[in-house]
């Protein structure tokens, strides 16, 4: 007999979707994506949203409210992580959607792809330790002014797992300065006890302990940790739901929002 699913505190506190249409997420699949199923399952089963795969050869993202570029090893990480995937046909539509204000989240390899595509600044290079790191990490929410962190409170600590060999965020000093100035750093690796960024809590050597950042328009978000692997209590954390819930709230819960839902319908 499987254990019963009690509603958690998080579920009770999430914005109620009753009476609203379901947000519809596109989960992009590249050859070598391996977190596409995690994303689809967590969005559909753990969050209760609508989600569909979109193969990378597709050119249209019509009818989707939000886009997920999942983790994995697209094209075997040949040349550089994300370098090939960024030239896939679907990426033109992802760029167009991003320019139109649609929320786009890139997780792990998805983050690398968005950086390669120029939708996010900087690049992700080999972990300073050279080791592949697979562990839960503690993250501090640095800004709640985004459609990805709006359901968190400032300074909230989240636990999400990382699993990567090339997650060391690198950017020029000037780029880092602008990121900080505009509060584009949304998540930082921190010590779980003190909540402060330390060298020991930085799993990959990222500049300024940056774990996740958004673009200047605040609708494109890249992060190395996996919300998709932390959306159910049985996985050890359901903090990932907060991020997906924020996206859902943005696309179907907007009151006088910036963009009407379904703005992609024209293709």
């Amino acid at each position, binding site marked *: 007999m499987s254990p019963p699913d009690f509603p958690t505190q998080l579920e009770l506190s999430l914005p109620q979707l009753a009476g609203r249409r379901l947000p519809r997420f596109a989960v992009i699949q590249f050859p070598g994506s391996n977190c596409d199923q995690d994303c689809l399952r967590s969005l559909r089963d753990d969050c209760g949203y609508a989600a569909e795969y979109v193969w990378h050869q597709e050119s249209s993202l019509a009818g989707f409210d939000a886009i997920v570029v999942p983790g994995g090893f697209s094209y075997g990480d040949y*040349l550089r992580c994300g*370098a090939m995937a960024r*030239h896939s046909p679907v990426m033109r539509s992802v760029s167009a959607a991003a320019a139109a204000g649609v929320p786009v989240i890139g997780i792990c390899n998805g983050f690398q792809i968005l950086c390669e595509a120029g939708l996010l600044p900087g*690049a992700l290079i080999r*972990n300073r330790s*050279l080791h592949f790191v697979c562990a839960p990490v503690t993250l501090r929410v640095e800004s709640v002014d985004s459609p990805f962190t709006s359901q968190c409170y400032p300074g909230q600590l989240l636990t999400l797992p990382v699993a990567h060999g090339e997650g060391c965020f690198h950017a020029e000093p000037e780029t880092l300065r602008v990121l900080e100035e505009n509060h584009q750093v949304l998540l930082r690796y921190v010590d779980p006890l003190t909540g402060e960024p330390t060298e020991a809590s930085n799993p990959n050597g990222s500049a300024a302990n940056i774990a996740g950042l958004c673009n200047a328009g605040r609708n494109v978000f890249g992060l190395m940790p996996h919300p998709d692997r932390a959306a159910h209590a049985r996985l050890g954390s359901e903090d990932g739901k907060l991020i997906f819930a924020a996206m859902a709230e943005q696309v179907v819960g907007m009151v006088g929002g910036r963009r009407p839902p379904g703005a992609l319908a024209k293709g």
Partner: protein
Amino acid sequence: MKARVTVMPKAAVLDPQGVAIRNTLHHLGLPGASAVRAGKVLEIELEPASDDRSALEAKLRELCRDFLSNPVIEDFQLEIVD
């Protein structure tokens, strides 16, 4: 006709592979190895030389910049080897 593209991490970019290789060189009896940078070399075989060599070279240079290297972290060098 052949093009050879050398891609190297920028000087300001951390190169942990280079550091690990340098440390191993020390263990293997080369204590004088003070720094190693690890990059990659790509050799591209091209159909017999086209008439417009400068257009070809411009195209190669564009692809080096937009695809074969990432200007945020890498520098490239393009050579046409006949």
